[in-house]
């Protein structure tokens, strides 16, 4: 049960992801306690909270990346467009083709820029000819705001780019397979302020097309970038609501204490 619903998502916006009663265990230790959360489509939802509160854990439940951690157990339902993500019969590979992920430290493959973006479409069979693949790559790089900077050096290794460019390359890689949801786990924490601002601008552009969930430990970033915010604390979802509401008049005193810096 979520403790406080400051404001539910407005009725006319579709809910893309619907989590109910999500519990996560690492071995014997429980990391998430009964999380209920609705994530609207075509909007940015920020997950905030102190270290170890479970926000990254919850994020990783959405694309079943917790499966890769030995000893991790996920219970509860997470509906993505009505299908339960946790269903054992659902192939995580198919799920991850619909839900992209961007990590904290930019991790482009040590291949060429072109190959980095083309890898996803290639393995999912999204492009059948070379020209089609070229088109997919170009569009993804354009959407990620990187095309102008790299169009003349697509055969350079992806690791030769700067940190901010690498993160945009990773975002291009994620959107090349046309996902429905993009998950971002602290995408700017390794970047300088200008690169961060570029990524935030990119997120702003992307939210017209995708459902974005971003975990951030910078409240200022959550305030700038998201439309809805969910505050996690010690594995529980304490409060969720409109970002403008949470940051001017949060309902739960724990939320208020966290965002005003009264405790970590």
């Amino acid at each position, binding site marked *: 049960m979520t403790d406080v619903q400051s404001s539910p998502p407005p009725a006319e916006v579709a809910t893309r992801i619907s989590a109910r009663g999500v519990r996560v265990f690492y071995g014997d230790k429980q990391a998430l306690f009964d999380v209920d959360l609705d994530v609207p489509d075509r909007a940015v939802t920020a997950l905030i909270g102190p270290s170890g509160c479970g926000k990254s854990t919850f994020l990783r439940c959405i*694309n079943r*990346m917790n499966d*890769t951690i*030995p000893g991790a157990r996920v219970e509860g339902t997470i509906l993505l467009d009505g299908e339960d993500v946790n269903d054992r019969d659902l192939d995580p*590979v*198919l*799920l*991850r*083709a619909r839900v*992209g*992920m961007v*990590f904290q*430290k930019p*991790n*482009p*493959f*040590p291949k060429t820029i072109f190959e980095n973006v083309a*890898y*996803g479409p290639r*393995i*999912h069979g999204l492009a059948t000819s070379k020209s089609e693949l070229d088109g997919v790559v170009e569009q993804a790089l354009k959407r990620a705001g990187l095309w102008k900077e790299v169009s003349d050096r697509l055969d350079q290794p992806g*690791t030769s780019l700067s940190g901010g460019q690498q993160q945009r390359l*990773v975002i291009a*890689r*994620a959107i090349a*397979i046309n996902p429905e949801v993009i998950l971002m786990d602290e995408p700017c924490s390794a970047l300088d302020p200008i690169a961060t601002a570029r990524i935030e601008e990119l997120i702003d552009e992307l939210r017209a097309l995708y459902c974005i969930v971003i975990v951030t430990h910078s409240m200022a970033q959550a305030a700038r970038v998201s439309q809805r915010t969910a505050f996690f604390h010690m594995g529980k979802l304490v409060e969720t609501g409109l970002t403008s509401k949470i940051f001017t008049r949060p309902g739960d005193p724990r939320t208020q204490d966290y965002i005003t810096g009264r405790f970590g």
Partner: protein
Amino acid sequence: MTEPGPSREDLKTTVARRLKARNAAERRFRLYGQVAIALALGFLVLLLGRIVQQGWSTFIDYRLTAQVYLDPSRIDRTDPGGANYDLLIAQQLLKQIGVADDENGTRSDAMKDLVSGDMGFQVLDRVKADPTLIGRTLTVSAPLKANAGLYFKGQVKRSTSEEERALSDAQIDWLDQMRAGGLVASGFNSTFFTRSDSTEPEQAGVLGAIVGSTLMLILTAALAIPIGVLAATFLEEFAPKNRWTDIVEVNINNLAAVPSIVYGLLGLAVFINWMHVPRSSPLVGGLVLALMALPTVIIATRSSLKAVPPSIREAALALGASRTQTVFHHVLPLALPGVMTGSILSLAHALGETAPLLMVGMVSFVPGVPDSLTSASTVLPVQIFIWENASERAFHERTAAAIMVLLAFMILMNLAAVLMRRRFERRW
């Protein structure tokens, strides 16, 4: 107001006092390191120096070029093989240097001892091929017999007394005369690289051993590397981490430390006695060495795989790649430098193994070049072992020369490992 604890001045003097002792300890440590390196290098130089000193003379050989008159009275046209070409040649040589033969033919016998039987074979082959040569004079060139060569190389000396010497005074005189007469010339000993083992040192070469080693290594590589890499990949990336995989890992680590002769016994019992693989063949040698190299390849591959940062795997998985695609498209290519280095090093190690190969019968005398995986062959280390035990003096220098060849082989393989690693090294 005094600060709690030691004052800044006290701290400074304490630290300064200790500093002298610490610097001295550091200098001592550096000295120990330098001494250790010097010792190691010294031993290395000593060893290599000894070997080169013993073996370099192998690469020079003394050849005799003689005019051989094919006396029709001695050679039967219908049976060219029946003639005693060695004697014929010896007698003609004596004549050429102006020494008369005695009635018992002891001198020609002695002369025969100076010339390699190869000369006789060459003449025989040419006569057989073209019998019209009978009655003509041929120019034939062949190496001198081993001891004669040793005389020119200074290893058989006039200063030793005749009973202890391999050559008699007369023989030595004749050699000098032949040399003075221009019949003897020195040159590069290509026989060493073009011939296989032989009972006569001057006709002995390492070709058979090199081919045998190469065949065996190819087989070892073809077996150990794919199996090892795939096994390691499975253990590292796919197998669940439970008790069973722990047991497997411990066993593999232990197998890497098992003495190599045990693998020889295994090869003997299983491959030769049970599966009836031909003895002394590159096949059985390759199988045994593949077993030996397998644990090392697995361990090297596993540690290379472990060194690939997990962020790459996560990135691939999050993109919707299956486990297999992640491993084969991303992880393994990144681990390749380490895998290759480990493989090449384990192959280089296998190249020098002797004990297990002795157990599977490679100790026999193999005069020819092996032409298939199942034909009898020998390998370089075993060849060295055999020659070391031979009685002729000339085999001593050849043993050292063979060791030099083996070392050259190993240096080449290590160099290949380093170059390939540099070439495929990727930065992530």
